[in-house]
């Protein structure tokens, strides 16, 4: 069985023997690992190792060929993304997603889940409740934007801000969905060092407040500084898992990155 998953005391996410192939290519090849509650777990691996595919499988965007995904002890394998989100797992995307025609704070307001105003009927039967929750969500969005020190962007068009600011907004919006575990796909790719530092501070702060993170990142300095433990993926399977120190000095990891393969 899966030593990685079983070794965890209180896994918020457990991936067991997950498989996915595209044609002849095994993008995810019997991957097994777990994410301990309260950690910032890193997920690294060379380009094409299957990291994003793994995120897509976990969050319900892809249907796995085999294996299971558990969130908070519930088997969510094969569920729709919105159902997985209901169990407390939210993910972001590798390429920033733009919401055309919305201001930043409007785009933020998509985040909160189960808003009363998302029911068409209630717009007309209980507009008061809708207004109340909208006010509360707006205040919350503006509070988080302020915490992220980007409140000056609130009424800017969401498409007119820099790539780095967009990553910050994505993280802030994901927090409005109140996830227990947040999956971030390359949060600092293409982000300037100042903003990257800001993102690191924010992730750490949110983690201290109780959110568990699983993050994919190519920036080794960033991920080694932030995450512990780190899971290394190569050609679709888990190569090793360990502390930043241990992973950095593991010969198999170095081999994988140098393109030798396993």
């Amino acid at each position: 069985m899966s030593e990685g998953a079983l070794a965890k005391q209180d896994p918020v996410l457990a991936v067991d023997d997950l498989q996915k192939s595209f044609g002849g290519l095994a993008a995810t090849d019997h991957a097994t690992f777990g994410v301990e509650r309260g950690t910032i777990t890193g997920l690294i691996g060379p380009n094409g190792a299957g990291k994003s595919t793994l995120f897509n499988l976990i969050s319900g965007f892809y249907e796995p060929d085999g294996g299971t995904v558990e969130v908070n002890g519930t088997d969510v394998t094969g569920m729709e993304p919105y159902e997985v989100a209901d169990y407390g797992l939210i993910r972001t995307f590798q390429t920033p997603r733009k919401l055309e025609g919305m201001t930043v704070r409007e785009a933020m307001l998509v985040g909160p889940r189960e808003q009363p105003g998302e029911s068409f009927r209630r717009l007309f039967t209980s507009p008061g409740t809708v207004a109340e929750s909208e006010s509360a969500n707006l205040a919350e969005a503006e509070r988080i934007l302020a915490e992220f020190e980007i409140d000056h962007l609130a009424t800017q068009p969401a498409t007119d801000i820099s790539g780095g600011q967009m990553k910050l907004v994505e993280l802030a919006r994901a927090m409005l969905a109140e996830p227990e575990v947040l999956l971030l796909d390359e949060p600092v790719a293409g982000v300037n060092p100042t903003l990257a530092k800001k993102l690191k501070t924010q992730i750490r702060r949110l983690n201290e407040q109780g959110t568990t993170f699983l993050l994919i990142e190519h920036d080794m300095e960033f991920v080694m500084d932030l995450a512990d433990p780190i899971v290394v993926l190569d050609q679709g399977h888990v190569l090793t898992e360990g502390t930043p120190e241990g992973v950095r000095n593991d010969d198999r990891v170095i081999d994988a990155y140098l393109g030798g393969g396993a």
Partner: protein
Amino acid sequence: MSALTDPRGAVEDLTRPEGWVLGVSAAFLLFLLAALLTGALGPTYFLFLVGLAGMYALLSFGLNSQWGFAGLINFSVAAFFGVGAYGAALFTASGSPLVELFEGVPLLPSLLGLPIVGLVVGLAVAFVLAILIGIPTLRLRADYLAIASLGLAEVVRLIVLNERWLTNGSAGVRGIPGFFAGWPVLGTFPEAMPGLRLEVIPGSPVLLETAFWQALLNVLLVLAFAGGVYFVLRRAHRSPWGRVLRTIRSDEDLARALGKDTYSFKMQSFVLGSLIMALAGVFYTHLNLYVGPGDLDPITTFYAWVAVILGGSGSNRGALFGGIVIVTIREGTRFLNDVALPIDPAPLRLLLIGVVIIAVMRYRPQGVLPPQRELIWPSAVDGGGAPDSPDSGVREQKGGGGDE
């Protein structure tokens, strides 16, 4: 609201295209008024045109709540329109084949002839049809709905054309009463009104007779329909519900990742739009008093798309504006023909619409009256202490700097 308390401020608050639209509309209204007073435009015919404009506005509202809100590509506007029109016609017309079909069935015949029953049936059939077409396509990529709806439009048209026992085939359905037939007061209002003779300009009197009062009732009816729909759509557009739809239109995967059941939201948007289109059809039946398979031609779908794109996808007032422009072009070309140009109006009409579309795409790809930038539930923005009022929002050209 603000326009009433502070008219000058409201005018100054307009963006340039809004001012432009307002100006052109005012000039156009003056022109129509002149034509009415001089007798060049018959008042009854004019009211018929207003009714037609209202009908196109309804069609555009329907398509806007699918394409403009959620990005759903529906090429069967004519089918949903036709289902509404035929549903209403078959249940109310004296010449309806249903009268024979239902003979001997208890209770049912007494329901025939009631316009309100026709309305309910038209909407109910559209509802079922929308769900049936939505179930297999809305889980898939956007192109599947486009293709399926293209097929649906043709299927509905062919059924209407060929199932003569039900629809009378190519002969169409005649003997349709006005919508208010059988109502207290309103049912007899046109006959009860005296004929009036107005002579504003000496020598060219304007006659207001029964047909005029009938047409006036139709205009009131379409104003009620369109007003009600506009109210519903405006509220929906600014709500969290509308925001999820706009997220789906921009990036469906993002909405899914944030825990939204996008299939359900798309279905709601699709059904809502289809019901509005069917409502347009119901109204058309009682306006035109005749429906035939020609009313299901793809040109209706085409006009609705032009109206929405012209007005600005996602914008309810844009859809209204687009609907009026379509009727102006459609009916105005008849006049051109009468007055000066020895050209057949049909190709001229399409040519004009083509030119308008190219001009808009070239100079204003977002449409003439695109939606306001920021759509947040109005009282929430007020409560949040933001200085911009919900009616002005963050407008183009004024966007961004509004909060400093």
